[in-house]
Structures are given as C-alpha cells and as structure tokens.
C-alpha cells in the first residue's frame, strides 16, 4: 500500500536528506500535511532536518505487537530534532545503553517482520 507524502518523506530520511514541514511561525510537523497542526497556517515549506537529535524518552518493549514479533526486545524512542520530534527504533547500540539525551541520527531500515520501511535511530558518534 502506498502512502503518498509519507513514503517520499521516509525515502528522504533513508537518503540522508531528511526534512520536516515548517510554518511561518516556526512550528514543525511531518507529511502528509496541508496545514500546521499547531497554529493552522497553510504555508508549509520543506526544511532540512537537523543531522542529529536527542532522545527525550524511550521504552524497551518486551511484549511486541505481531508487526514487531521478530524485533523484541527492542527500544522505541522519541527523539527531538528541534522543531519536530520523531519516533523510531534504536539500532546499532545495546538496548541498555540508550539514555535520555543520547545523540542519534535518523535513518530507515526494513522491519524484519513485515518488510515495511522502518524509521530507525543510530548513535551519532558511531
């Protein structure tokens, strides 16, 4: 199933050319959007996603849904990139080393269970 807007955004993240949608008031959001969810502005422009972000919260999931059956236990994190926060799975570092404030980059990978594109974070200093 194609999800126009989202698919292109994920591909850009995977290519190292991630972006977010910025409004004139400086709010950030992710596509597909026609209006800023924070203030309703309709003039949205693609802004480059900062190269690194900081983990603002995370959880190690031990009981997965079927779409992550082959991943558990895995760490899902919410990462702040300034104007936007992204949610993804942390890769390339041990689960027990993920902390609040850990610096990561955004990338994509394949979900081993579903074969779908998956947003992932990798340690920035790797």
């Amino acid at each position, binding site marked *: 199933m194609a999800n126009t807007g989202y698919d292109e955004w994920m591909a850009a993240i995977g290519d190292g050319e991630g972006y977010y949608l910025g409004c004139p008031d400086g709010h950030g959001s992710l596509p597909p959007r026609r209006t800023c*969810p924070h203030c309703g502005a309709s003039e949205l422009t693609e802004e480059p996603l900062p190269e690194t972000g900081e983990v603002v919260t995370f959880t190690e*999931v031990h009981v997965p849904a*079927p779409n992550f059956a082959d991943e558990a236990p895995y760490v899902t994190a919410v990462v702040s990139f300034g104007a936007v926060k992204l949610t993804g799975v942390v890769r390339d570092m041990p689960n027990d080393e993920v902390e609040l404030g850990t610096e990561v980059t955004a990338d994509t990978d394949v979900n081993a269970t579903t074969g779908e594109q*998956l947003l992932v974070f990798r340690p920035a200093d790797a």
Partner: protein
Amino acid sequence: MKDVRIAGVGLTKFGNLPDRTGRDLFAEAALAAREDAGVSRDDYERIYYGNFMGELAEQQGHQGPVMAEAAGLECPATRFEQACASAGVAFRQAVQTIRSGGADVVLAGGMERMNNLGTAKVTQSLAIAADELFEVRAGVTFPGAYALMARAYFNEFGGDTEDLAHIAVKNHANAMPNEYAQFHREITLDDAMESAVVADPLRLYDACPITDGASAIVLVSDDYAEEHGLDAPVTVTGTGQGGDKAALQDRKYLARTPAATKAADEAYADAGISPDDVDVAEVHDCFTIAEVLALESLGLYEHGEGIGAAARGETTRDGDLPVNLSGGLKAKGHPVGATGTAQLVEMTKLLRGDHANSDAVSDAQIGITHNAGGTVSSAVVHVLEVMD
C-alpha cells in the same frame, strides 16, 4: 436547559469471557440498567453506544442496530468510537441531547469483546488507537506508549516504579469486594515490582488486563423523572471533553495530559464546582502512570505531586480522596469501549450508597469520572452529584 438524572445502571461481570458475543454482553448490561430504571420500553428515544474494535474482534460494523435489538428497544441507535473513551463520549452525547430537549430518555453504554482474539492480536488491535504512520510502524504498543510517558514523567518530576506499584496494590485491594471486577486478588508491592517487564519501565502489574464486558446507563430529564416518580438521586451536573495531538511526538508535553485538563475545566465550570469540591473520583488507570497523570491533569494534585498520592495513603479507600474505589481499569478490568460508562455506573452506585465500597464515601456528595482515549489524545470528564 433540562437537568439530566441517572435513572438506572447496569454492568456485566468483567473478565475473560471469550465465548460470549458482544450482543449478549451488551444485552445483559442494558437489561440490568432498564430494570434498575423502571422506565417504560416505549419511552426510550435514543441509544448512544460505545465500541472500539468490533470490526477486528467480531467482524461486526454497524453495531448500533445490533445493540438496539439486543437491548430489546426500538429507537435510533448510534455507535461512538473514540478508542478507550468511546462510552464516555457516548454518555456525553446523551447528556447534551437531553439538555437540549432532543430527548427525555436515552440509553448510553458500551461493550468490548477482546479475549477471543488472544494477546498478540489484542496488542495489535489496541495499537490502532495510536498514530499508524508515525507510532505503530515505529513499534509503539499501547503499554509502550504509556511507558514513554512514564519515563518522561520520572525524568521531569521524579518518582519511581515503587510509587506506581502502590497504585496497583491500592486498586487491587479496592476491587476485592466488587462483584463485577475481573480480579479478586490482593497483591503486594513485591508482586507488582517483580512481575514481568512489558515495556520498560512498566511491568505486568502496571497494566490493566484484557477484559470482556459491557455497561449501560439510563439517563432521563429532570422533568421525566418527576412526572414518573422515578427514584433517580444522582444528577449529571457537569460534562467536558478535550483533545490533543494524536501522536506523542507532536505534543508539547510528554508527562502531562492537557486534554484531560481541558475536559475537567469545562466540566467543573459546567457544574459550578472546583477540584477542591470533589469527594471521590474514578479515573482512567489503563496503566498505573495514567492514574498519576489523571490526578494532576484534573487539578486534584499539582504536577509532580500525584505520583506519591497512593503511597501516602491519600487516594486509598481510607484516604481524603479515594480514587478508583471500583478497582479501576487496573483491577476491575478495561473492556475498552465499555469503560467510560462502567466508570459512571460505579460512581452512581458509590454516590447512591449501593456500591460494595459505598461505606468508604458515605458522606460523598460530588464524584467525578475521567475517561481517556489513546495516550489521552481524547478525554471526557463528568461530574455527578447526589441531590438531597
């Protein structure tokens, strides 16, 4: 504007009932509420019914007519879907319909059948309340979402998993005398803190169970109650609803639930009360941390102070503000689409004096219910008062 009274309430036993159909569960609760109300069958004008995942659990959409039949009524029936707040918004719609003069008698309720799916499919089904593109695909489960909020809370305000365990212990104790509750098992702090990790930092005993069940309430206008001499001592004096961004990543706060604050502020203003006037509360503790977030967002505690309320004994049965005397979602159970009206059934009985735990709040005049959807991207709050 017409005042709205609660004329009758009904519940099924909550529990692991995989073989019972949704229509049979709702029939049991609706018939119990109808009997409690004593309203003539012909006088029912609307059914507002909450259900979250009926398409997934029973391949049954368009549940309004199915449930009207089950309830033995012939009137228009509409289903409301708002994740775990489905029945709460159905009840709110009933209040608003009666207040506006659109009807004098409405049956509000909800039902969820879950256990027939098994744990893995239930986990998958519950996750559809989250943002599909940006959360579910990133591995966010329902417990995982609340775990993200719990860690953010600990980081911002302090507190720890032992504080959360006190909430689980309290709510299990409250459920003991409640015949409708799923669990009748006291637990210890050690039981809670040594249970299996579901989504770190949350453990099995931080989570509500998977529950089948139904709930129903007969609401009537004040005029109707007077004309028909109904015994309906509980009045709905306040209703409020709030919303937030669907995904946690788009929110301003990860450790606060402003949708509940909006709902509470509206409901308190509607009822002409302040949080200080609240004698007893039923809040949406789908996870222990959710009870903390609720207490703070409802204005019952300052942000950062709610985490220790159970440990300090303030929200226990004998405390100043008993919370979740029913056992809460944690121990009474959480049939998702039935929970909102189940909380209102429990609160009505607590205030009327015919609840197993009514003796803990024998002087209570004002009770509130807080029903949340998803990670509190939806919230509904109601104020119930006993009229002298």
